[in-house]
């Protein structure tokens, strides 16, 4: 049954390639892409269930044994991420149906959308560092196309910078791969872990670890490499911004967590302390950016940065509960952040602007939009009983347990500032006097709310069902902290 592993990668690729043929037929494109995303979600659910019940499975392409051939590995972490990406893929697609401009649909929006999912799922499932590079490139090339689709002046200008920065990061990735191959003579992640465990001299490894950290930090928008994110996520339409905000940075974070729990574990005293510092700075400066902004999408973009810090903080603390907290946080963040970006899209549809100073009074004309937004906003800030609280709680508790009081303080402060800036959006955009015309007030948002409601339900559910979800995250953390299981199931003894 391990051939199932390839489905989340091959299915979007095949569908994306097929949709190129139907570029001019909107209805056919929508129908096929909807069916395909449901199928991807089903296969992701199956994989997650399979990984939970049967443990790690691997798929060796062409029956070439592990260190020599290409392998796909499904452990709890990777299938969890694939499941999340499938959910986001479906929801953003539904939102895109209602909001995306018809001209953009004709210019290969759906093919690129599915190529992006191919790259994301492939990056999660692969067990090989060079394949990780290739899937990163698949994902990035489609993201360049999606971010510039529409071709307004702002988009062209900012996506050139986005593309240039990411190409530079990819070049560094290749340099890191070259050094690592020169040192160890292998690129299979499990094999790398074995070889690095055997090595005596580790000075060069430290350098390579930092190169990889810089590369993934650039993709994951960590301090000080986050400057590209707020401007480039501002340009594209809401459905694409939501997909990016939910998924793309998390691929970088996934790669950091994967490599720094499996491969670069030889000197956690240096690397993980460094990661903890970066996490604190990322959280702090990200949230400062959010506090200073008055634009719906920009505030959300800066919040991506500050919350990526929490996930990396879990890795930096490097204990069982902290990594479980980070995994929980990734799930919470992907769901809530996508929902919030979709809210930004819905309010933009009504008011025609994303500047919250020019909005007001949406609470009266669109009460459902406002209250659902408030739930997600409070969840992002970490108010119990929503998912944000239960994902931050283990992180902060764990940092107190191992006496890193500094990071605990920063995390709490950032939570407070997050609450402040989310309430700022609520006060400016939804409270107060009505700033939009009566004609705009009669615009119905029911169709737009349909894809958002499941996400809001999920964040409530993750909060109420925090116990089983956290148990699952602990199981993920156990697998991540005991790479022997991973190594054994990939290399086979």
């Amino acid at each position: 049954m391990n051939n199932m592993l390839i489905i989340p990668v091959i299915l979007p690729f095949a569908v994306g390639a097929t949709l190129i043929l139907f570029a001019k037929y909107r209805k056919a494109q929508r129908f096929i892409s909807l069916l395909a995303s449901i199928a991807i979600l089903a296969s992701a659910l199956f994989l997650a269930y399979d990984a939970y019940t049967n443990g790690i499975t691997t798929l060796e392409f062409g029956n070439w044994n592990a260190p020599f051939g290409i392998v796909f590995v499904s452990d709890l972490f990777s299938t969890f991420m694939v499941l999340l990406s499938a959910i986001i893929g479906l929801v953003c697609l539904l939102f895109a149906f209602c909001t995306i401009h018809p001209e953009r649909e004709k210019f290969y929006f759906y093919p690129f959308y599915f190529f992006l999912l191919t790259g994301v799922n492939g990056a999660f499932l692969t067990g090989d560092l060079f394949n990780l590079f290739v899937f990163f490139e698949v994902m990035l090339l489609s993201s360049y196309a999606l971010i510039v689709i529409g071709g307004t002046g702002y988009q062209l200008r900012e996506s050139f910078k986005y593309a240039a920065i990411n190409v530079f990061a990819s070049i560094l990735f290749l340099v890191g791969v070259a050094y690592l191959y020169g040192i160890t003579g292998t690129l299979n992640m499990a094999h790398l872990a074995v070889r690095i465990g055997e090595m005596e001299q580790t000075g060069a490894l430290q350098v390579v670890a930092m190169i990889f950290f810089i590369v993934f930090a650039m993709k994951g928008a960590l301090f000080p490499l986050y400057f590209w994110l707020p401007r480039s996520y501002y340009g594209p339409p809401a459905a694409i911004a939501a997909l990016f905000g939910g998924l793309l940075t998390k691929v970088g974070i996934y790669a950091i967590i994967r490599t720094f729990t499996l491969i670069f574990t030889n000197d956690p005293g240096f690397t993980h302390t460094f990661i903890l510092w970066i996490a604190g700075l990322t959280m702090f400066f990200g949230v400062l950016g959010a506090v200073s902004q008055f634009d719906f999408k920009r505030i959300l973009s800066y919040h991506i940065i500050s919350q990526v810090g929490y996930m990396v903080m879990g890795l930096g603390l490097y204990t069982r509960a902290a990594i479980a907290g980070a995994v929980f946080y990734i799930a919470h963040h992907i769901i809530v952040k996508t929902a919030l970006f979709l809210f930004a899209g819905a309010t933009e549809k009504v008011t025609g602007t994303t500047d919250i100073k020019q909005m007001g009074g949406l609470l009266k004309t669109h009460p459902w939009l406002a209250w659902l937004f408030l739930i997600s906003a409070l969840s992002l800030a970490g108010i119990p009983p929503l998912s944000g609280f239960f994902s931050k709680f283990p992180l902060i508790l764990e940092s107190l347990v191992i006496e890193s009081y500094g990071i605990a303080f920063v995390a709490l402060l950032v939570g407070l500032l997050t609450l402040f800036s989310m309430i700022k959006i609520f006060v400016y955009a939804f409270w107060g006097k009505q700033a939009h015309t009566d004609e705009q007030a009669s615009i119905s948002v029911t169709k737009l709310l349909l894809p958002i409601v499941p996400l809001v339900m999920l964040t409530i559910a993750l909060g109420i069902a925090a116990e089983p979800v956290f148990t699952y995250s602990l199981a993920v953390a156990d697998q991540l902290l005991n790479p022997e299981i991973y190594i054994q199931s990939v290399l086979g003894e």
Partner: protein
Amino acid sequence: MEILMFIVIGVFFAIGTYLLLARSLLRVIVSLMILSHGAHLLLLTMAGLNAEAPPLEHMADGGYTDPLPQALILTAIVISFGITAFLVVLGYRTYKVHNTDDLEKLRGSADE
């Protein structure tokens, strides 16, 4: 031989970094091309250049060349072709829309 290659790679990276700091769109694109060629050569060289025999086991008396880096840079070169093509088109459209290729003028202001 390896030393010579490393010097070439160093020169590539120096030129690439220099051009990356330029203000013109086209120079940035060229610099990314040169940098990626440097990275490809590095990938080839780090595994060790061995001119004794082709990577065919029955023809090798002593050592034979490691075939994997060659497969890797083949993939990497194809990817960098695609990206370069995309960047050139993107740069051209940006130039057409904004009528400038000066990155300093493409910075944009906060209140647009």
